[in-house]
Each structure stands twice: as structure tokens, then as C-alpha cells.
């Protein structure tokens, strides 16, 4: 398991976390390459069906990134995302799935460093957790 490199699917909001990731890049801040980013207009636009699809397809982690509470470009998208993630996590937990593979983080456009740290932290966490058991499960 030493050479296990987790794959993270990132659903990042255009206005904050995606721009934060951009800043990390332009500022040449190093972070692990394990994240694949999907640019969303808002974290409130992330339908949990896609989060679950990514999990069932074997993504080791999901990072949903949005603006800090109160800073949403569309006023309240991130608050609604937070409720949806709470519901998703409850269901995953009760059914015995690993809810800790799903992270919701508030990272603003100026927090390039925080974005890099979050990804680094998440990779370390997922390495400890091991590969997503659903990765090789075909009969779902």
C-alpha cells in the first residue's frame, strides 16, 4: 500500500476555491497532484448524485470547495451545499459507507496557501484510510 496514490475529485466553486487553486498555482505553491478539479459556478450547484457517482466509480476522496459562509457570490449557495453534504454524510454513515472521504471546505480566492494545505492534508488522510473499496466493486 506504500505506493498508493489517492485520487481526489474536486468540485470547486468558480469564485472562491477555484480561484484559490489558481492562486496556489501562480504563487508556485507546491501541493500533491492527486486532485482532479471540476470547475463549478457555485458549491450550491453540486448535485450529490455526482459526488456519489464519483465515489461509486472509485474516487478515493471528494473535495467540495466553496466560498466562506456569508461570501457566496450567489448569496446562499454554499449554505445550501452545506445542508446537502450533511444529508449525504448522514446517509453514507448510516449505510456503512466511508463518509470521511467527502470533504467540504471553505477556501477563498486569496487562500492559495490554504488550498494547497487542504489538498496535502487530504492526501495524507486518504493514504491512511487506504483505497476506496468501491473502486473494484463491479456489482453495484
Amino acid at each position, binding site marked *: 500500500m506504500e505506493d498508493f496514490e489517492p485520487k481526489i475529485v474536486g468540485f470547486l466553486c468558480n469564485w472562491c476555491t477555484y480561484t484559490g487553486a489558481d492562486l496556489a498555482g501562480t504563487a508556485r505553491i507546491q501541493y500533491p497532484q492527486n486532485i482532479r478539479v471540476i470547475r463549478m459556478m457555485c458549491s450550491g450547484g453540486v448535485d450529490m448524485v455526482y459526488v*456519489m457517482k464519483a465515489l461509486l466509480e472509485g474516487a478515493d476522496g471528494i473535495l467540495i470547495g466553496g466560498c466562506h459562509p456569508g461570501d457566496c457570490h450567489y448569496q446562499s449557495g454554499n449554505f445550501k451545499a452545506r445542508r446537502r453534504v450533511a444529508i449525504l454524510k448522514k446517509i453514507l454513515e*448510516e449505510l456503512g459507507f466511508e463518509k470521511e472521504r467527502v470533504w467540504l471546505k471553505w477556501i477563498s480566492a486569496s487562500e492559495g496557501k490554504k488550498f494547497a494545505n487542504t489538498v496535502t492534508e487530504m492526501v495524507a488522510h486518504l493514504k491512511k484510510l487506504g483505497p476506496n473499496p468501491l473502486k473494484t466493486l463491479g456489482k453495484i
Partner: protein
Amino acid sequence: MAKVFNVSSILDFKDILKKALEDKIFDAILGLFWMPSNDMLTLELTSEIDEVDKLEIIAPIMPVQAARVISNIKFTESNLKIACIVKPCELRASVELIKLKQIMPENLFFISYDCGGAVNVADFKDAVNKGKNYIDEILNCNKNFEDFSAKHDKIRFACSVCDKFIPSLCDIRIRSFGSNILLQPMTQKGESFLSGMKLESGDKDLSEYENRISTILDARRNNRNKEREIFRSQVNSIDAVLKELSSCIRCHNCMTNCPLDYCKECIFKTPVFDHPVENYELWLNRKRVVKLPTDTLLFHLTRLNHMSSSCVSCGACESACPAGIRVSRMFMFLGEDVQKIFDYEPGRSLQEELPVATFREKELEKI
């Protein structure tokens, strides 16, 4: 003490409905009526006074969740005045659909009753053909304050664990237990309707009634708690979930019959999951095995995520499942967990906002 109106039997209430149709208080009645074959009850909308003879007000059967069909009729505002005779779970689903703007409540008059439960359509039809009379059976149970759902071996699971069988947000509540049928107005509309019918009325001490009902409630609640624990201990791992769903044939009946799965543009009705062949090749490389049709687990998880916060525990999903999956357990018990996060109870109030349509600035800070 509460103001109630007396009728000697449920048949008298049919006469009241007839008179209401005659006086144009309602344009139509929506309820369960006998089919011409006399072996099945079906939901029907009628303006015909004589047709009311074929109406069953207290009937232990729920062929289609009434909230679905009410939404079909009333998804836009209209002047059509309809008296809907519904079960408490159908009432709760209607409340949810009103909040979801799928039912326009204007000109709707809800009549509901203390409910003893229901059996599945096939069992009902089978019983009628064998000469059994489930209607009389439930009325007899009610008369003696006995719980039909506890006595009956064919009872739907959802009914046997239903602890919300007393309606609250209706215009008239029929207190259907005991030797006298009592009609209790729950709204101003209900009050003025019943007053207009010149029935014997008065303030009545209902503590005896409440006591006897609470015995039934306690038994059902115990049953629910017991079943919840069993379900929790059985379905708590990926393998167990897959076992639970192993017979799913992806007919989508659970979704079609769920009153809360109202989206016309449901993602599972779109080509999103018509995968190109390259995807299958990809899966064959990575997983070696692809279950067909694809995305069955995803289908159920998606439904859970999208509607469990409003699940009214009616069990329509399970009744519709041809593969014997215990769908309603999954939805009602997980639904309870989800609803608990937001201190929400579907169908409890028209003012309480739907959990997924609102938010609090300070909440869920450790997500």
C-alpha cells in the same frame, strides 16, 4: 374538550357529502370508489351524486398515493373545489407537495381520519374474490378500539409501524374509532362546513378516546423502534446494502409511486446514464465486472439524498416494488435520521421550511 359533530355511522357521512355536492359546496369528491367489477377500490374524482354510494371513506387500501393525483389535478391554481378524502400519510405528502409548490391548496378541502392501516392491492383483490370483506373488518376493529394493523397478517409494513396515523392538518378529522363516529373540525373551513350541515354537536370530553388511541400508538411506536433496530443491525455495511438491493430490477416503480419524487426532469429519466460503449470498456478494465443495467446502487442513493428529508413513511415505494425489496424501511428510517438533523417532520406544518430549500447561517459547523 373539543367541539365535535356526531354522525351515527360512516354511512351518514356519505349523505353529508352528497348534500355538499348537491349544494355545490364542492364541485367534486376525490376518494376511493368501487370499480364496476366490484373487486377493487380506486381513486376517483367525481361530481356525480349517485356515485357517492360507491365511495368508501375508511378503506384499508392505498392503490396510489393520493397526494400524487391531487398534484396532477391541482398543480396550477383553479376554481375547482374538491373535497379530498385521504389517509394521514397522504395528507402529510400533500402538505409537503404544497410546500414544494406542486399542489395549489386553494379550493381544496381535506378530510382525513384516524387510520387503522392498509393492505396491498393484490391482497385486497384476492380477499374480495374469496368473499372476505376488509371494509367491514376494519370498521369492526375501529368500533372496539382495536388496531386493524396489529391484527392483520397482510398489513403493509409501513402501516404496522406507523405512529402518525392521526391526521392534523386537515379541515375535518374523522375520529373513526369507537362506537360513534365523531367529526372534528380542524380549521375554520371545516367548522363552517360542518355547522352548515345541521348536525348534532357540542363540546365533548375526548380523554377516553385519546387514552384508548394512545394504547394503539404505543404499540405501533414500540413496533417501529423494534423494526428500526433490526434494520440498523442488518443494513450497516456496503455488502449489506447491496444484499438489500440485490433483487432490484430497476423498474423505477418506487420512484414513480413516491409522492415526493415529483421532478419531471428526474436525472434518472434523462440520457445521463446512457453511457457510451467506451465507458463499458473502461469499467471492464478497471472493475472487470459491470452489473447491468448500470448505476443501480446510485439510483437508490440518489433517491435517498434527494427526498429522504421529506419522506412521509407512507410505504408506497415498497407496495410498488415487484422484487420484494424492503424499500420503505430504508427510506423511513434513514429519512428519520436526516430529518432529525434539521428538527424537521414532513407534513407537520405548512410553515416549517423544507430542509433542502432553506438554511441557517449558524449550523452544521463541523461538516
